[in-house]
């Protein structure tokens, strides 16, 4: 029993000894190496006494953050501005006035940030930056509008080119055609019209545009995240319509991931194409038709989530494709 106690005590004292050794060596290391290092630095005069300047670190942080805000606001506009103004003659006068205001504000904020006079200037700079941010937002909104308008005009110009002209101007005696594509977005060449099949319509001037609805106003958009719905339209014509006056066209709008956007479960369905394959249609359009009269058909198609990519619109009649167009959303 006594031996056991003695060995425990011996063991404890040994541990305490080792522990004290560790502490001593740590202290020795601190004392010798670190202090001597400082002394060396002192000797070389690396650290020299400078006249003390009282620096308000909070103010510096604020200035830095304001500078960051300022830079972000400026960079948001980037090169977009120049290109949009180039194409927007009608918007030039109001845009110029706004741009002057923007440049003036930009100079003022820049001067304020350069001056290091204190908190009052920073407060003023903060206000000015907020104003600058709102101006940038306005200009970006205008830029989007200009860009959308520009794209629409380019699309119209493309459509008006002689090679893309729809067959509406063909003489009555010319056979009705089944166009394969009047694509406004892609650059694929338009295939030569095929000879007509009795009862089939010619569909042309196919358009598919995305729209955003804000404050009860509908604005055309090219941005997927802004889009609320598609508006599609096309013109149909047939000099030899079928006996029945009531004609049915099926519209297929395919999303970039390959799925067909459905108007609703009660308005979408499936049909068989002339090739025997089954296809889902987005919606059906029924209309009365008088022989030989071009008729414009319109539809809207809402979706909860538009993804960026190419959307395809196809028009079918009795399983045959009459026309196709695409729309790219960024």
């Amino acid at each position, binding site marked *: 029993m006594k031996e056991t106690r003695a060995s425990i005590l011996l063991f404890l004292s040994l541990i305490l000894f080792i522990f004290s050794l560790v502490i001593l060596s740590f202290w020795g290391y601190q004392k010798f190496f670190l202090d001597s290092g400082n002394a060396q630095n002192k000797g070389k005069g690396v650290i020299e006494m400078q006249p003390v300047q009282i620096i308000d670190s909070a103010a510096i942080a604020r200035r830095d953050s304001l500078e960051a805000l300022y830079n972000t606001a400026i960079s948001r506009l980037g090169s977009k501005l120049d290109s949009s103004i180039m194409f927007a003659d009608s918007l030039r006068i109001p845009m110029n006035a706004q741009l002057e205001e923007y440049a003036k504000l930009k100079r003022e904020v820049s001067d304020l940030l350069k001056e290091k006079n204190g908190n009052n200037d920073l407060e003023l700079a903060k206000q000015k930056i907020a104003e600058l941010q709102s101006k940038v937002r306005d200009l970006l909104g205008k830029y989007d509008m200009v860009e959308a308008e520009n794209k629409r005009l380019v699309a119209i110009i493309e459509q008006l080119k002689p090679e893309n002209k729809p067959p509406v101007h063909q003489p009555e005696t010319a056979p009705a055609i089944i166009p394969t594509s009047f694509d406004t977005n892609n650059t694929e060449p338009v295939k030569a019209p095929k000879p007509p099949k009795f009862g089939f319509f010619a569909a042309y001037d196919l358009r598919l545009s995305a729209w955003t609805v804000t404050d009860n106003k509908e604005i055309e958009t090219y941005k997927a995240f802004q889009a609320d719905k598609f508006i599609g339209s096309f013109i149909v014509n047939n000099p030899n319509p079928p006996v029945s006056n009531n004609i049915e066209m099926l519209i297929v709008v395919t999303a970039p991931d390959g799925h067909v956007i459905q108007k609703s479960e009660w308005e979408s369905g499936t049909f068989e194409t002339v090739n025997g394959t089954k*296809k889902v249609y987005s919606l059906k359009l029924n209309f009365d038709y008088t022989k030989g009269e071009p008729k414009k058909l319109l539809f809207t198609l809402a979706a909860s989530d538009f993804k960026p990519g190419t959307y395809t619109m196809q028009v079918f009649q009795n399983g045959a494709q009459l026309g196709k167009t695409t729309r790219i959303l960024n």
Partner: protein
Amino acid sequence: MFYIYLRRNFLLLFVLLFVSAGIIAQPAPISKYQKSHLYSGIEVGSKGVKMSLVDVNRNDGNADFNIVKDTSSNTDFISFTPETFSATVKAFAGLYLTARKDYNIPPNRIFTVVSSGVKIQAAKFDKNAWITRLIDSFRVAINQPTREVDVVNVQDEARLSHLGIVPAAKRYNTFLIDIGSGNTKGGYFPNGNTTDFKLFQLSWGTKSTANAAEKRIEGDVTLNAFNKQLYRVLAGSANDEIVYAINVSGAYNMSDNIAFSGGIAWSVATLISPELINNSVVPVTFQEVEKFYDRIYKNYKSLSSDEIVKKISDPTINKVDLTKKINTVNKVFDQRALLAGTGLLLKIMRQFEGIYERKQFFLVKNGQVGWVSAYVDKAIAEENSNAKGK
């Protein structure tokens, strides 16, 4: 000391991990909608007690429905024996408590009804008191003495189904026909309001049509013989009743859309348009269903899940889910039952196929929750009016 502290912390960490895993593992149904609310409908029917859990998405005053769960317990209440009675009470209360506790649905979002089938059978055998006793026993079992349990009649059931299934935009020009196993019922709203409902009833259903065809077969049990006899059943007494009932209903002149619900509508919709597997409604034409009938008879193999899934090209369709759904249909309806049901469906559709005026046909897959949807609509309207009152 440090070791003990460390060990305690590790223990605490493990306990926390297990608790959080336990919370995550609760049977929370997968919601299709972002702003969803779960509702439940429990119905005592002729065969047993059925519970449907419906996920409702409220959107600008409209409500979209998605069936989350559909479960039933066959208790055969209409036998009216003490054993089936207690089994029904147990199932009724059990499903109610499942909705309350497992799915955390508040009592005001659980609807409990006794179906018209039970009411008719009880009246027929003078067992109305059994229904009252069933409701009282159910209230005691769930400890809710004021619990509302509606005993619906055929008219109410058809009306509620119409209100729950057909969207408001198509309400007054759609004739809804529910093809059941033993009979067919439905109707429409003729006067542009939801109180006047024109009821339509037939004594023919999928099972009764198949049974009638089977009965006529003498010795020859081939599919050919069944098909021949089925044709005779549908061309004979069934046809007379169908033509008469549809003429009397006046639905031809009053409806643009003819929607079919019930088991056969669900199975035909699933097999005819697998591309629309996620839709609860499938529009069809008479010709499509006619072609489908030929396919059941001549090429039944093409209706297997393997054959159907093989032809699906849409990359967004979940093929595993589709396979499961097709297999369920094929398990519930065999070739003969499909022929009988589709034959009856065609017979009714034929009455609406005019040369000059064509009706739009729809097959509704989730007809069984029609009445639940109507109750949900009513509850939402009440909640909204209460909110406005406050």
